[in-house]
């Protein structure tokens, strides 16, 4: 599976590691839903660390699309909300 960390690059990750990624992703989403910035930052950094630790960086010249995309390391919760709902990206 290919995961991109926004602003950082793409990583190839064993499917075995995805369960933990999904767990952290749920935490991240829950933090966004209950508007908890501290929990959001902790979950995001946990998620990114997991990807960096278990993934191997893809070559720069590859044109493989990612299966999953993660927000950049220094993203705020508001920025992530914006990324998810940005007007103009999607018509209708």
């Amino acid at each position, binding site marked *: 599976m290919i995961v*991109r960390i926004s*602003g950082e690059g793409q990583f190839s990750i064993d499917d075995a590691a995805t369960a933990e990624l999904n767990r952290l992703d*749920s935490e*991240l989403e829950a933090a966004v839903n209950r508007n908890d910035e501290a929990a959001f930052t902790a979950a995001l950094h946990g998620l990114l660390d997991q990807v960096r630790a278990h993934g191997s960086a893809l070559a720069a010249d590859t044109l*493989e699309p990612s299966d999953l995309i993660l927000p950049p390391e220094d993203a705020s919760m508001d920025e992530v909300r914006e*990324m998810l709902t940005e007007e103009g*990206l999607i018509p209708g």
Partner: protein
Amino acid sequence: MISARSRGLMAAKMLMKGTAARMGVMKRVSLVFKAKANKALDKMEDPRETLDYSYQRQLELLTKVRRGVADVATSRKRVELQMNQLQQQSNKLEDQARKALGMGREDLARGALERKASAQGQLNDLQVQYAQLQAEEEKLTVASQRLQAKVDTFRTRKETIKATYTAAEAQTRINEAFSGISEEMGDVGMAIQRAEDKTAQMQARAGAIDELMASGALDDAVGGQRDDIQSELDMMSASSDVESELSRLKGEITAGAPKQLEGGANGNSQGAQAPQAGAQAPQGQAQPASIPAADRPAEPQDGEG
């Protein structure tokens, strides 16, 4: 392929309406990226047109990201310049404090050190900004290199596709090439936007510091502006110059005085001394001594009455 594209858009629309609530942040972000790519693809009649169109966009984005790197570097250099100015200012204020202390003016020394502390505070703030800008610059540089590598791959593949496949066959190949690069483009575009936002914030703060330095609150050493601590120190040393000049002149006059007296300037000499005695009287001993003498008779009178 068209159906795949529609699926992407549908998923994106679903998440807009909040019906994709259990999808997770990672998946939703990637869907937004895909929707963006699909939207660009939908514009083209002949799928092969998308190749040239996208390649053009890629080159534009490369230019933009390089300009972004240059902009961040400019901001970083500006912060660096300000840091140097503040450091000079801080050193100068410490010098002034030392001189003021040497002249026994602790009040002036205190004032100078207070300003030094303020300059030092600004300096610490700028050091943090400088580190952030440096990190941003490195990030964008790497992003620009990554995009360049992908654009090169894309160009090669584009030529192969155009030469080898008919319009009908080309679509699959194009989608493969296109999805990876458009994701990268979306990401780089976002990175540039973030860098621009940060740079704009820092430029606003740099402008504020420039204003602060121009106002004299930190005193602008480089601009050579008026500096009240320096001017008071200058005044003190100037007045000590005046004093030494005065005593030199007095010395000359005293040495020359006998000659003038011999010339029959006796009356003048006495006349000049008389007003001096009169002028000194209010501060001198003579008058205070005479006032109590005049007052004393009045006191017993009050006491008796």
